[in-house]
């Protein structure tokens, strides 16, 4: 077989492809050929590396040098310097944000340093389109073990003992779910995978499906064995074309290799698996709705019981597991429940993958042991808040979750601790917000989402979310009333208790948590008609503090409506009649001289003092 002295692991995930990985690959191969290195060095396309914001990224092995923000123009220089002359090319290395020092080795970059890779064990290390590479990393060994050396009961016991909980959001113990379904007598059962990752701000499952599709398939084979199912579906969002393509390819490879279909690995066990593409409905992430959707109907939830373990897809016993949950299964079978429990906490064992996005310096996909404090994730891995701004909240759990304030940053990330804050673990979206964000608007953003995605089957959710949204719109547009906060809370509680499915039962969480931790913002919106973040256009006025203005003219040039006047080196002024409240000047000013006051304010000096940040 071919031997190479170096493998260039180029990320070909959605993010890096969008930032030009395909062109970079072509340029690399051309340059390697030109320099006569084609026989020595090969380019390997990997799944999502997780460090999407700096894409395209590439790690050079065995050197372990990490390159980011690759461009076609830089490729010749990179090849000449590193691969021909052996001098790692500093220009494309990760730079430490504050001191701008280059960090050559991937393992030294803080973003990667604090992570423990289990679910993402193969990210950037294998070509997801080659089954041999997955097998070379112990792939399908666990399936072989489960199918030939273990009984269904033994498989279920290991998973139960491991304490693995569903990574889709609610955290139901996976082993228990399997046990319920295994105990129901039925000739036909279904093993299903939920790849309908709908939470805005979450992309863990997409990355896993793209970077390691075989891990998901192997997890499904083992689950099928545990519950004695012989048919399965992977339900994937239509918005994830690359994930669909990689999974399809992986399934075909498995059929060719006898890892799916009849008599898998000569064990006598049969399992057929196919992909079902969703069609864009958030509610289909709910298990009963998802099953309805596979049946080819409107994806609306139904009351439980009966639970899917008894009556699921086509009324047959079914188990639905999340992508990340399934990707952990092979590891647990191979290494045992004790190994799995060695990380995490008593009630939340193992690791969890998060999609860290928003106002942090290092954006990307991370995997940390359960129980890691939020502060470590945001400041050590995430590298703190962009441009040195002030942290305001971290949103977890998407539209079903909530905003966690700074005072709770030392909280360990576990299912139990996150629930106490009013947010939920959710599928792993973690959106960091700084002081540029208005929390009432954030609540409104999520309610717009849930009101729109409510399937309409039950009234509390369909009408309730709409009323909540209208009230929030009133508050952000200056029509808020004194008792609104109380009404919001009352209505929220009613919706939670009376909705049919998880969508309605959790939809008010963003409102309740923002009221709980950011009550002052609601109050200032309602009583002072003042959005202190300057986001709600009807509730703010922008002024330039003449004492702080240096007359640099940056805001004047930036203003899209030419509302700022002033001579160079003299204090500038905003013409209120022309201002469109776009915040551009506020973000442009380097001297903190732009002040946000309530709507219709006339620059009273005492307020200027109060708003200084």
């Amino acid at each position, binding site marked *: 077989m071919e031997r190479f002295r170096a493998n260039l692991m180029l990320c070909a995930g959605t993010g890096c492809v969008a930032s030009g990985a395909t062109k970079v690959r072509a340029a690399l191969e051309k340059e390697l050929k030109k320099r006569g290195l084609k026989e020595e060095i090969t380019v390997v396309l990997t799944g999502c590396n997780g460090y999407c914001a700096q894409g395209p990224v590439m790690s050079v092995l065995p050197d372990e040098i990490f390159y980011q923000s690759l461009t076609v123009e830089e490729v010749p220089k990179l090849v000449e310097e590193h691969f021909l002359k052996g001098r790692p090319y500093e220009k494309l290395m990760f730079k430490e944000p504050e001191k701008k020092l280059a960090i050559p080795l991937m393992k030294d970059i803080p973003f990667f340093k604090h992570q423990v890779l289990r679910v993402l064990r193969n990210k950037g*290390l294998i070509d997801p389109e080659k089954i041999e590479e997955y097998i070379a990393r112990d792939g399908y060994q666990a399936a072989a073990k489960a199918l030939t050396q273990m009984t269904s009961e033994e498989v279920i016991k290991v998973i139960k003992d491991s304490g693995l909980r569903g990574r889709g959001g609610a955290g139901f113990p996976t082993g228990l779910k399997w046990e319920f379904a295994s105990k129901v007598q039925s000739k036909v059962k279904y093993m299903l995978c939920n790849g309908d990752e709908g939470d805005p701000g979450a992309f863990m499952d997409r990355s896993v499906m793209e970077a390691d599709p075989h891990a998901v398939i192997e997890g499904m084979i083992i689950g099928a064995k545990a519950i004695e199912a012989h048919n399965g579906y992977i339900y994937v969002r239509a918005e994830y074309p690359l994930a669909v393509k990689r999974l399809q390819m992986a399934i075909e490879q498995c059929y060719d*290799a006898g890892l799916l279909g009849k008599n898998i690995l000569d064990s006598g066990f049969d399992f057929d698996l196919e992909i079902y593409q969703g069609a864009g409905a958030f509610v289909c992430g709910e298990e009963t709705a998802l099953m309805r959707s596979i049946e080819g109907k409107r994806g609306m939830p139904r009351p439980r019981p009966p639970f899917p373990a008894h009556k699921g897809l086509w009324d047959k016993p079914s188990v639905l597991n999340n992508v990340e949950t399934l990707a952990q299964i092979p590891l647990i079978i191979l290494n045992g429940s004790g190994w799995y429990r060695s990380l995490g906490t008593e009630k939340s064992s193992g690791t969890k993958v998060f999609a860290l996005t928003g106002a942090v310096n290092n954006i990307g996909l991370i995997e940390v042991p359960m129980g890691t404090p939020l502060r470590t994730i945001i400041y050590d891995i995430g590298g703190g808040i962009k441009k040195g701004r002030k942290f305001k909240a971290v949103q977890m759990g998407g539209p079903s979750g909530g905003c966690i304030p700074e005072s709770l940053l030392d909280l360990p990330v576990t299912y139990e601790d996150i629930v106490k804050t009013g947010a939920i673990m959710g599928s792993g979206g973690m959106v960091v917000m700084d002081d540029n964000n208005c929390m009432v608007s954030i609540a409104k953003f999520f309610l717009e989402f849930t009101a729109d995605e409510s399937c309409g089957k039950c009234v509390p959710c369909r009408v309730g979310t709409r009323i909540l949204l209208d009230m929030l719109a009133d508050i952000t547009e200056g029509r808020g009333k004194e008792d609104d906060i109380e009404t919001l809370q009352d209505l929220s509680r009613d919706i939670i208790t009376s909705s049919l499915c998880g969508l309605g039962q959790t939809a008010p969480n963003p409102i309740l948590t923002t009221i709980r931790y950011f009550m002052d913002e609601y109050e200032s919106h309602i009583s002072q008609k003042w959005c202190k973040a300057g986001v709600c256009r009807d509730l703010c006025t922008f002024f330039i503090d003449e004492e702080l203005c240096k007359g640099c003219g940056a805001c004047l040039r930036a203003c899209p409506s030419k509302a700022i006047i002033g001579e160079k080196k003299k204090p500038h002024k905003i013409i209120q009649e022309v201002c469109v409240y776009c915040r551009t000047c506020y973000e442009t000013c380097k001297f903190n001289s732009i002040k946000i006051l309530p709507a219709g304010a006339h620059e009273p000096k005492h307020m200027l003092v109060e708003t200084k940040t």
Partner: protein
Amino acid sequence: MPRLTIEDLQKIKEKHRATFTLREGGYRAKITVHMGTCGIAAGARDVMTALMDEIANAKVEDVIVATSGCAGLCAREPMATVEIINHPPVKYGDLKADKIREIFKEHIIGGNPVEKYALVVGSETTY
């Protein structure tokens, strides 16, 4: 791909061991060929090619090859450093294709440094 048996899984794993030794670490020996301007001018490319050839023929899976810049001793280029884990590294100079082939057989496979080509023993390790 034909239908796999459990034994096949193991065989595929063995077959790819070399690739993953390279990617994951865990190698036994590392040979660094110095490829500065001077090294290349003096024929480091031929040395590299010969070395890659030897590795492929010998079917060893725990040896990796790296390149580095000028070693600072331009007069003795082409140069290479052989590091066997837990042994002092050995720098060789004035290399040619046949010399590196000999070094590969004697030192990397056999474990005995080739003293007649060695410049220095026990410089800094790079692993």
